[in-house]
C-alpha cells in the first residue's frame, strides 16, 4: 500500500466529472439500526447482479441493502473513458449519500474499486468478494482459461468472461446463459489499470475487512485470495465448489449469510 498523502493537489485540480448512477435498493420493513450495505459489482457486471438474490436476502435479515452500477455499467451513464479513479469516486459518492455510515461490499474488480474508495471514505467495514486486484498473474490465468475472451482486452477491446469462469456446474445452463448475456464491459483505461496492480492508499478510519472467495474460482487464484487477505491482516473465508460470481452461483445464500453473520459479530461494524 502506498503512504498516507493528505496534500492532494493533483486530485483537487482535476475533479472527476460527475456521471448519472444507477442505485437499486432493498430495505427492511422495520428499521433495526443495522448499518447499510453497499454492493459494488465488478467489471462487466451491474447492480442487477446483486438485485438477483443478495439485496433481498440482506434486507430480509434486517440490513438496508443498496447495489450500484459503476459508470458505463448497467443503467448508469455510458463512460467509455472511465478510469479506476472515476469508479472509486462513484462508490464514495453513493456511500456518502446513504443516511448512515455504510459497509462496502465489492466483488471481482469491484473489490479493487472498494479498496480505493476506502482511502476516501471511512466505511464501517468492508467485504472483498473474489477480489481481482490485477497484476500479470490474473491476466495469465484468464488467458489460459479463455484466450479468445481475454486477448482483445489487452488491446483495449472488451473483456468477455465465459460461463466456465463465472459459475459452477451446479447452476442451470439456462440461468448461466442469461447472466452471461447481461454482462457489459468496463472502460479500456480501467481494464488496463488492472495490469499495473494499482496500489490503494491506506484505508481511512481503520475499518474491519473480510476477504472471501472460492478455491475453485477460475478468475481469482487461491494465492491471490490469500495475498489480499494478508494485506488486511486476516485469512480468506472459502466457499469450495463455487465459481467466481458468488452472488449468482447456485449456492449464493452461503456467502451472503457468512457476510451478515460476520457483520453481526464484528464489534467495529456496529
Amino acid at each position, binding site marked *: 500500500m502506498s503512504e498516507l498523502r493528505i*496534500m492532494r493537489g*493533483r486530485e483537487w485540480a482535476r475533479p472527476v466529472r460527475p456521471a448519472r448512477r444507477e442505485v437499486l435498493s432493498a430495505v427492511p420493513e422495520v428499521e433495526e439500526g443495522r448499518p447499510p450495505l453497499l454492493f459494488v459489482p465488478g467489471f462487466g457486471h451491474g447492480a442487477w447482479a446483486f438485485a438477483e438474490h443478495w439485496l433481498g436476502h440482506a434486507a430480509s435479515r434486517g440490513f438496508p441493502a443498496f447495489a450500484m452500477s459503476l459508470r458505463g455499467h448497467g443503467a448508469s451513464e455510458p463512460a467509455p473513458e472511465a478510469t479506476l479513479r472515476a469508479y472509486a469516486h462513484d462508490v464514495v459518492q453513493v456511500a456518502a449519500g446513504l443516511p448512515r455510515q455504510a459497509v462496502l461490499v465489492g466483488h471481482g474488480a469491484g473489490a479493487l474499486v472498494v479498496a480505493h474508495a476506502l482511502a476516501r471514505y471511512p466505511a464501517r467495514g468492508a467485504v472483498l468478494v473474489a477480489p481481482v486486484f490485477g497484476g500479470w498473474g490474473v491476466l495469465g490465468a484468464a488467458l489460459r482459461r479463455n484466450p479468445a475472451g481475454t486477448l482483445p482486452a489487452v488491446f483495449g477491446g472488451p473483456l468477455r468472461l465465459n460461463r466456465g469462469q463465472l459459475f459452477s456446474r451446479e447452476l442451470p445452463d439456462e440461468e448461466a446463459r442469461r447472466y452471461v448475456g447481461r454482462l457489459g464491459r468496463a472502460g479500456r483505461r480501467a481494464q488496463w489499470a488492472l495490469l499495473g496492480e494499482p496500489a490503494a492508499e491506506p484505508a481511512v478510519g481503520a475499518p474491519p475487512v473480510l476477504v472471501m472467495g472460492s478455491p475453485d474460482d477460475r478468475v481469482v487464484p487461491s494465492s491471490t485470495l490469500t495475498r489480499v487477505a494478508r494485506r488486511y491482516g486476516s485469512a480468506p473465508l472459502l466457499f469450495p465448489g463455487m465459481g467466481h460470481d458468488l452472488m449468482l452461483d447456485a449456492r449464493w445464500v452461503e456467502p451472503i449469510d457468512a457476510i451478515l453473520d460476520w457483520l453481526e459479530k464484528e464489534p467495529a461494524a456496529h
Partner: protein
Amino acid sequence: MSTSTDHGRPDPSAQGRDAAPVSDRGDTVCVIGAGASGLTAIKNLREHGFGVDCYERETGVGGAWNWRHDRSPVYASTHLLSSKPFTQFPDFPMPDSWPDYPHHSQLLSYFERYADHFDLRSHIWFGTEVVRVEPAEGDRWDVTTRSTGGYGPERTSRYAAVLIANGHNWSPKLPRYEGLEEFRGEIMHASSYKDPAQLRGKRVLVVGAGNTGCDIAVEAAQQASRCWHSSRRGYWYAPKYVFGRPADQVNDALLALRVPLRVRQWLYHWTLRLTVGDLTRFGLPKPDHRVYETHPIANSQLVYYVGHGAIGPVPDVARFHPYAVELTDGREIDPEVVIFATGYLPRFEFLGASVFADSAGAGRPTLWLNAFTPGHPTLAVAGLLQPDSGMFTLAHWQTVLFARVLQARRDRPERAAAFAQRVRERAGERYSGQVKESSRHWFEVGHADYLRAVQRALLDLEAK
C-alpha cells in the same frame, strides 16, 4: 453506543475549585463547539476509539454556517470562496449534483448530513456553553458548563483532553474612528448584515475590502441608491473562474507541478492583466504587494460593478462628522448606512490567560501548526486558521493528528514526548509566504505548506 454520553456520577474524591464536586469522565475528550471543526473532531476522535462530550451553545450543528445561530456571520447570499474539492471534508464528499461554489444553506445541510451519517449528535450537549476550562493534575482538564444564557447551575467535569473549536468569526473587530459617536447615520458591523433589503434605496458606505466587504459592496451596487467602497490598500481581485475552470483548481494544478512561488505570481499577474485588466483605470488603488501576500479575494463581480459605476472606490476613512464622512484624500461623502466589514477577532474567554501564553491578551495564542499548545499536551485548537483555500480539510487533519497524539500518549509515550518537545520548539511557525503584518493575517496559512507540515507531523509520530 457506549456510555460516553452519560455524565458519570460525581466522584467524591475529586474536588474542583470551591470544593464543588467534579465528575470524572475518565478517558473521554471534551470538544468545545459543534461547528465544522467541532464535528470533524468528534468524528475523528470517535474513529480513534475515544469517548467524546461535545458542548455546543446553540441548539443545532454547523456553527458559523448555521444562519439560525445568533453568532452566525452569514448573509443571505453567502457562497463559498473555494470550490468543492477544496471545501469538502477529505473523506465525505459533497454531492456531485452541487455547483462548484455551493451556497451557505447547502453547506449547513452538508454538516447536518455529516452529523447524521456518522451518528455524531448523540455526543453533543446542545444549548450548553463552556464557562471555564482549567488545568487539573496529570495533564487533565476541568471543564465547567452551564445552560446557554447563564440559566441553571454550573457543573464541572474532568476530561483527559480538550479540543477547542469555538470558531474565530463571531467576535466583531471594530476600528476606532474620530467622531464615530457623533455620526447620525446607521452603523453596523458586517456580522449583523443579513439581507440586501437592509440596503435598498439607501446611500451605503462599505468599509473593508475583504471577501465579505466585496460581497456586500456588490449587493449594495444592485440594491442601494449609491455605494462607496472604502479600502486601506489596493488588492488583487481574483475571478472565481479562469480558463473556464474554478480558479483554485487551476492554482493547485500549478502547485501539484511544484511551480515556484515567483513563477506562480508572475503567471497570476499576467492572467489578471489579460482578464480583469488594469484596476487603476477604474479608480481602484494599485496593489502595494504581490499576489499571494495578502489573503486572496475571490470576487468576479466587484470590478464589473465598478466598471458600471455602481460602486465608487474610495480611500480609507479619516473621520466621521454628524452627517458626513471625511476620507483620507480630503473628500466628503454623505452615506446613510455605514457597514464595517472589518473582520473578527478570536476569543477564548473560558480559558485563563496563562494557558495560551498570550501575554497581550489579544486573542493570538502562540501555537504549533496553529493547533498545539506548548506545555499543554492534551489541549488543542481546531480551525484557528485562515487558509487560502477551504478550511474543513485542514481542520479534519488537525483533529486526526490530535487523536493520534492522544493515542501515542497511551501506547507510545516516548513518541508523544518527542511530539510535545517539537510543539515547544516550533510554536509560532508560519505556513505561508511573506504576508502583510496585520491582525487580518494572524492565522493566514497556505493550504499546501500547511498540509505538508501536518503530514510530516503525522508521519513522524507514526515512524517506527
